[in-house]
């Protein structure tokens, strides 16, 4: 722990961080019908990491290694994959394909390839925020 790290801030960030991440996932999945979506969700998750950064300084995210790059790549890959599902359904590239599953006990589950596409957007945005934090944050530390 850094000597000047605030105890109050540290405790509250520890509490808030998982909640914000969960909230960002909620935004992602609720996005098709309520405010939210991959972009907003990704930014929210990014904000969670910013909180960590403010709390612990660059040490918190200084060595993410290749994670941001992988997130970016995975995000683009998932988005393109979601686009290709449109072909599988006999439509055009990126045409959304909807499936609804009847699950026992849970009820009807509706899934769309647009959601998968949004997951890709989410990953790219998180990857971008992490990249910026890692690169500029490490820069600041010197």
């Amino acid at each position, binding site marked *: 722990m850094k000597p000047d790290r605030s105890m109050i801030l540290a405790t509250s960030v520890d509490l808030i961080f998982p909640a914000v991440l969960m909230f960002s996932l909620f935004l992602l999945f609720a996005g098709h019908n309520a405010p939210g*979506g991959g972009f907003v969700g990704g930014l929210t998750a990014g904000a969670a990491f*910013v909180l960590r950064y403010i709390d612990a300084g660059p040490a918190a995210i200084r060595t993410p290694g290749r994670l941001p790059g992988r997130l*970016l790549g995975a995000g683009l890959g998932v988005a393109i994959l979601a686009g290709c599902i449109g072909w599988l359904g006999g439509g055009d590239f990126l045409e*959304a394909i909807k499936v609804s599953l009847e699950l026992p006990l849970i009820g009807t589950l509706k899934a769309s390839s647009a959601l998968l596409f949004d997951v890709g*957007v989410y990953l790219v945005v998180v990857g971008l925020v992490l990249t910026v934090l890692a*690169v*500029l944050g490490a820069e600041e530390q010197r």
Partner: protein
Amino acid sequence: MSIAAVLLVHVAVALVAPLAVRWLGRRVFYLCAVAPVITLIWAAGISGRVVAGERLIQRIDWVGPLGLGLDLRIDGFSMLMVVLIAGVGLAIFIYCRFYFSDRPDLGRFAATLSAFAGSMLGVVLADNLIALYVFWELTSITSYLLIGFEDGKAAARSAALQAILVTGAGGLAMLAGFVILGQAAGSYSISALLESPPAGAAVGAGLILVLLGAFTKSAQVPFHFWLPGAMAAPTPVSAYLHSATMVKAGVYLIALLAPAFADSVPFWRPLVIGVGLATMLVGGLRALVQHDLKLLLAFGTVSQLGFLVVLVGSGHPDLSFAGVAMILAHGLFKAALFMSVGIIDHQARTRDLRRLSGAHRSLRSTMAVAVVASASMVGLPPLFGFISKEAAFEAVLHDSGWVVSAGIIGGSVLTFAYTARFLWGGFADKELGHGIEPARAFPAAAAFVAPAAALALLTLLLGLVPGPADKLVSASARSLDPEARGSLALWHGFTPALGFSVLTVAAGLAMFFSRDRVHRLLKRFRVRLSASEVYDQSLKGLNRSADRITGFFQNGSLPVYIAVILLSVVAIPSWALIHGFNLPGRLVFAESWGQVAVGAGILAGAVFVARVRQRLVAVLLLGAVGFGVAVLFVMQGAPDLALTQLLIETLALVIFVMVLRHLPSSFRAVQWRFGQALRVVVSGCVGIFVATFALLSAHPGGDGHLAREYIERALPEGGGRNVVNVILTDFRALDTLGEITVLTVAAFGIASLVLVGRNREEEPDEA
């Protein structure tokens, strides 16, 4: 098996090879050889029908609305090319197995070579101009990757770049030519184009552009210089791409077009035959002064390509026949010769003829192969090269003027002279210069020589028994020009063509025996402005002007960057804005007092941002402006926008603070009066532009039918109640895909810019 399946086999092999190399090592080339074997079996299966004159066609829809089809067809001529590509390819893959030692990037090489073979097959099988262009460029790209395979060497990299710039520029010209031809003919189908060739001035221009592409690809003067440069590639690549197949793509295209356009387009014959003859002579002369055996062969290839262009480009049935026979013959003997050079290089560690002496003792089988292939190249009986050259002499004497005849004879004499020099240089006992130890050559493994020997044997067999070749060549010449006739035979009687052959041999021998004098004479004719110098100079000029432009617009001053970006934003769309200026009739100042209050706050914040001196304060105020806008969004019932705006402002603030540390804590007063005025003007322009834009785009044409349509279609078609999200992930998903791609690129850009700056700062410490 469909035609497309042949191409798909190559794609599959190219995909599998990099993975398989882990278990197979160098034997991965045997796996690659599967594709040409399948191709050959397929070709054998349909050969009966194709030789009988049938034309097999397969149409694959590609972009229907544009009339773009991936049409494939195989007739006699493409059959001959397919056999050549797959046959030589098979030999090359086996040769590669012994040429390379185990190295980690072998999988990449094998995959690229397979991909090339597939693309080259695509070139000769395509029946659509655009499809042909795509395959053509694929061969250029794979050629680039293969020339630059030794990517640690600067020479290989610049040779690869030179090759792709020259052939790529030609390819672009060719694309423009294809579009002109396609529009004039009303169809992009090659068969349709050749059946009823269009006419007119535009067609002439289009043909010149297409010829430009063919000339660059087939290394014709003055674009020939890239081919010797491409010898930086590993020898299997030179043997396969840069002698037997890829450089024949231009010849192939000229052969295809010549029967349709040679008679109707007045400049066709002078241009094509002139360029071909010049290439033949320049290549032959340059080959005579080379010391590097591979370069010698490369200039020889340039010369032979010129010869082929003369033959197939004249558009005369007999010459076409001879040209097709020469294409086949050249593929066989030149690939074998290159492979022999590769063996010499591999076993003696040099291919400089000034360091080689007495290699014939240890490389006996290699020399046998080289002698047979060379004899075929210069046209000695009883080899296939002799037969096809006889056919060429016969046709030239019969149908062409004395200029062409003299040029061909001259070129053939040169061919004899440089081929003799090649054999002498590679294998003979000779006096080396002072203090030069002859390089020691180690005997080569039989399997290493076998692929080259197989090709040499084939050129011998086809010479003794020309029947099968005759059938294939006749069928392919007929598919080019129904009137084409001719026969391949070893003995035609005492014809003028035989006299030509004798004359060629005699003069060639004379030139070889007085080689020292010839060499001195040629050395005296130093070309003042060589084509490769022109290339170097234009490349330098391009780089210099790019430097200047970059230096002007990106001079290192952040305000200038921003001014350039903002002014271009204002300049280009504002034309459209003025053009469609249509102020909505009913303007509302504000809908509630809340809006007025928030708006006033935003304005005040903006004014203070412009006035404060402390950078941190300015950043915070800017954030406040952003949050104010978010509040406005909430009041207007746009939670998605508000949420995004809020998050972006937060993140931007944090990132800003991170960077702030590197900037002075307060703004410097601008000393330069003019600069200050410029800032005010730029800001004013942007402000007015954005305000007008917002005002007008809120009321496109007065009714919000676009917005209404989106809202109406969101739930039934997009399956979501959140219109913004449905637009992002469904209606305009392609835009979103583009945006996240930009985000990814931006992330890597930021990372590399910062890291580059850091490394540069740290360098002195490390030193």
